[in-house]
């Protein structure tokens, strides 16, 4: 499997990453090297092997249904979340008009 220059450009566009022609010059072969390597890994017979989801065996932690229990992961911080916005008005983020 390999990707074309056009495919790499499209993926970059979908991810909104600006990519010049020079970037594509070295990224396309880099992508293809990675894909070749993954293909090589695919040659190993893994039938009957459980997929490993974490290097250290551990379980997914769940949180209790409590509002703002931890200030770092709770709300009520309008000023903080808007602080980095290029435009913030009346408590909203302002973005260039987007209408479907």
């Amino acid at each position, binding site marked *: 499997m390999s990707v074309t220059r056009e495919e790499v450009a*499209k*993926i970059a*566009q*979908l*991810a*909104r990453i600006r990519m010049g022609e020079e970037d594509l010059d070295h990224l396309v072969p880099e992508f293809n090297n990675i894909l070749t390597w993954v293909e090589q890994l695919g040659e190993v017979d893994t039938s009957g092997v459980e997929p490993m*989801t*974490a290097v250290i065996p*551990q*379980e*997914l*932690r*769940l*949180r*209790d*249904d*409590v*509002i*703002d*229990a*931890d200030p*770092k*992961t*709770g*709300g*009520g*911080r*309008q000023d*903080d*979340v*808007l602080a980095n916005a290029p*435009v913030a*008005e*009346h*408590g*909203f*983020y*302002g*973005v*260039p*008009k*987007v*209408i*479907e």
Partner: protein
Amino acid sequence: MTNYRIQGATGEWEVVIGLEVHAQVTSNAKLFSGASTAFGAEPNTQVSLVDAAMPGMLPVPNRECIRQAVRTGMAIEAQINKWSRFDRKNYFYADLPQGYQISQLYHPIVGEGSLTIDADEKAGIPEDKVIGIERIHVEQDAGKLMHDQHPTMSYVDLNRTGVALMEIVSKPDMTSPAEAGAYVRKLRSILRYVGSCDGNMEEGSMRADVNVSVRKVGDTELGTRTETKNVNSVRFVMQVIEFEANRQVDVLEEGGSIDQETRLFDPGTGTTRTMRSKEDAHDYRYFPDPDLLPLELEDDFIEECKASLPELPDAKRARYENELGLTPYNARELTAEVETFARFETLLAETANALGKDEKKVATPVANWALSVAPGVIKSLGDEADASHATAARQAAILKMQDAGEISGGQAKEIFEIVLKEGREPDEIADTEGLKQVSDTGAIEAAIDAIIAANGDKVEEYRGGKDKLFGFFVGQTMKAMQGKANPAVVNQILKGKLG
């Protein structure tokens, strides 16, 4: 089978419908953060650093959201997947700060299930019909964009960002607008019984993506479908299907073809239109979210979900019919909404207790009271009625007097009117306002004697075989008693005296 058909120039067409319903999970906090989910707060005040996708913030799933999804799955008798996983659905839009929605594509938490829509002859559903449900998965909601507040900018409110949604995906098992409407209503009812979603469509707690395709009657291949997004009422879902089905038939009959596309519904005109979107809008590049381990459900967690399920609509309706002896109509009306059955069951218990009788014995009068008498009185009073006065205890007291023959049906309504207006106690009202039937045989006998004496000719006719005159004597007696005589007592005494 439904008989919903579209008459085209080239023959008859049938419609195939599948629905994806997004239901907001009832929880205090969001799916992956501790920010509040309450509706209507100041913009961006319920946004945590996780929801704003600040670098380095990690999602931790809310146990309650998982629990509600599992309970919902159980309520539709679905397979519960003890192992599920979250995936990233990547797209770039201003309402989604992460740049991806955390969803479950490959391994949803709930697998196949079903629900039954009830027969409704008038709507063209001749018998109960089972609608398959493909899956339920849990995912994040996006934020809200406002386009009309500023000439050149859209405003973004991220309060809704990260709130938990269940996406409930039906199979393409529906074949008419009425069936789709019945499906959404039934699903909403189940969600509200379970308590996993408030079902408030105005506030956007439930919205549907409507998939519609058409094919010639008899064809077995499915036609190309369109998906109309974010339809937020039962009526609109039905309108979308009606419009889309007819539009597709027109296109196909003119030799055109249907594009598999996303469309928008315009409630103002009842029409749908193509969403202007780029070709690659659906290139979501899903992959397992590396920030989240697989979700594995423990047996005791699943057991608790099962044990906490309430009696569900179909079971409750069957019990009302079979055990309480209610009519199918009453059973259906009483079980449709959570508030209705809750009020009924409270009043039923209170009344049975007041009368010292079994619930079965009083269920029918209580059902009639709850469904028709009480709402009628409340409606006739309009703004004068204060519903908070109508406690179960007061209504039970009225039903008790009626059961004992102390008051008539008309007097029950009059007493209830005063209860609603003034919040007084029914027993006191009956005494003070003279709203009681006379069961005192002495007074009734005296009145009847006078009437018999004054109508000698009619008495002869009656005795001569003109049975219909019995009604005349009842009427005269009631009139003489100013309508307050207990009809059962009147009948009994009249029969004795007329022979």
